[in-house]
């Protein structure tokens, strides 16, 4: 967990000082540098080498600030409204949509100036958001620890073989997708999640823990504390790099989630737009799917073979209305916590 209260307070004070310093130094706006607000794992595992290429091509240096989660990023973006210390913000689509409701935060995408914009797949863009990748939300498991070495449906996770073996995301992770999947399984849906929460209550015995930190859950999967983690496809790659063999399956219903970039209002929109154009470029998207095991958003790039394996079958995938989720997630979480609390 990267967020510790003491540190964040200190960071807030520090950020204030930085802002004050920035406001008395107007020349800094002319500097050829942009700052990304990004998850550290995404930066280290994916963007860092690409950003170096970007700097070489454009002469624009890339610096970073770290966010622990999309929502925490939103808190930061809001706190530095008008004078952001970052220019490009990596976030989940739903969170970007929420941020867009405040006209002071996000700059509109300069669609005309983005040569690659027209190549982005359907659903991957909005007026303030460009997806960097997509992924299915599914079951990542250790074949060596799972009976029969294979999982093919969500329903199997409710079976007695998985007692105390599951790491499932808490509602704050993946914006409540776990609740929505359970709701659909139980005959409910986004308008009625109660059956889903009842369904999750029935899996309590099998859940070792509900994770709010993906490194913690990954570690538990790697150590065999759990044999199943419900998460995104990038986990397969991250664990493979550590020498842990895992498989992923995205059974029906398989939510598809977009994550990507937004441009923050703060005076460097033009340089930020150049960066966005790189993110959605054919070249970067190829790396994103091949190296990071995520879905490419540029239609000229085919999903890497490994990634294609984890993609849901035709007709199994689902998408949800992010606005509705944004409005209701708080209430779902409260119900969920009441149901699964100790």
């Amino acid at each position, binding site marked *: *967990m990267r*967020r*510790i*209260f003491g540190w964040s307070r200190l960071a*807030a*004070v520090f950020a204030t000082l930085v802002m004050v310093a920035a406001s008395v130094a107007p020349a800094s706006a002319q500097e050829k540098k942009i700052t990304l607000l990004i998850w550290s794992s995404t930066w280290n595992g994916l963007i860092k080498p690409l950003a170096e290429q970007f700097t070489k091509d454009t002469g624009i240096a890339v610096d970073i600030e770290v966010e622990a*989660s999309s*929502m*925490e990023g*939103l*808190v930061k973006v*809001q706190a530095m409204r008008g004078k952001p210390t970052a220019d490009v913000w990596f976030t989940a689509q739903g969170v970007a949509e*929420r*941020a867009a*409701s*405040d006209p002071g*935060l996000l700059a509109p995408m300069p669609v005309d100036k983005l040569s690659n914009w027209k190549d982005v797949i359907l659903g991957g863009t909005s007026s303030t958001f460009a997806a960097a990748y997509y992924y299915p939300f599914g079951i990542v498991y250790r074949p060596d620890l799972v009976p029969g070495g294979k999982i093919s449906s969500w329903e199997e996770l409710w079976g007695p073989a998985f007692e*105390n073996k599951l790491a499932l995301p*808490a*509602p*704050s992770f993946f*914006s*409540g997708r776990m609740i929505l999947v359970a709701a659909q399984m139980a005959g409910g849906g986004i308008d009625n999640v109660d059956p889903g929460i009842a369904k999750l209550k029935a899996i309590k015995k099998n*859940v*070792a*823990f*509900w*994770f*709010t*930190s993906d490194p*913690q859950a990954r*570690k*538990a999967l790697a*150590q*065999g*504390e*759990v044999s199943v983690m419900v998460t995104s496809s990038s986990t397969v790659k991250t664990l493979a790099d550590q020498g842990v063999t895992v498989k992923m399956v995205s059974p029906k219903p398989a939510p598809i989630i977009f994550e990507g970039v937004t441009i923050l209002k703060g005076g460097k929109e033009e340089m930020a737009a150049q960066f966005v154009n790189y993110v959605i470029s054919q070249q970067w998207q190829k790396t994103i799917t091949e190296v990071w095991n995520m879905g490419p958003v540029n239609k000229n790039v085919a999903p890497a073979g490994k990634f294609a394996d984890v993609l849901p079958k035709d007709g199994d995938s689902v998408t949800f209305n992010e*606005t509705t989720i*944004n*409005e209701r*997630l*708080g*209430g*779902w*979480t*409260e119900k969920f*916590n*009441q149901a*699964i*609390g*100790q």
Partner: protein
Amino acid sequence: MRARPYLLLVPALAALAIFAAAFALFVTVSFSTATPGTVLTHGPATLANYRSVLASPLARDTAITTLRLAGLMTLLTALLGYPLAYVLARSPSRLLRRTVLFGLVVTFLSGGVTRAYAWLIILGNKGLINQTLVALGLSPVKLAYNETGVTIGVVHFLLPFFVLTLLAALKNIPLSLEEAARNLGASRWQVFIRVVLPLSIPGLVSAASLSFAGALSAFLFPELLGGGRVHMASNVIYETILTDFNLPRVAAMAALFLVLALAALALLGLLQRRSAHLWAGAGAKT
């Protein structure tokens, strides 16, 4: 130019002013209304958020869980910490004192996250304890991802604060009082029960208050060791921000939990003053 001593207060006052301002802002927010699904808030001032939190079963359960766990953690910390503090204050063995102190200070040096992961390695389903149990042919027990794990982690975190606070109080009890008691026929145990324990109550209450405050505000250990099941105030506030993003309502929730925590601490403070009052200034003459 002579330095003026009160100038030394300036950094502290500035820091306090910043906190006070932040706090005022946060209380102000709690009276506004959030626009659903957005990050926006609007007026006019309303108590609706407070009503909503007070009516929420999760908030009520969280308050009960938080107070119950904080109480339990404080009690366990005191039971473990008192003997350690006493050893540090009175043991004639320098080696023993150093060992205890080292053990306590080392926990200060290791970061919270590191410690939480270390506890997972010990307490986990396949952790050291459970592997040992299984090797002995016993059935494993759930020690992590529940209240047990959180309690162990937080107690371990609180121990040094408790011990060092109590230590100062114990050191203030003149050794000659213990000798006087033994001289009058009291066994070691009687000396402890009749002299040391009652005289350490003000210090004990201070140390317990500090631990209680620490336990009330526990975040990291419930987050990492609680497996998403242990709902203490800080975690619920955090999760509510991340899912609801209703800042006004979260601010109201945080304000209410703060009031609750302050009330609990005020009660402890009253207890301390009561106990200290009985023998106020006792140390002065002796």
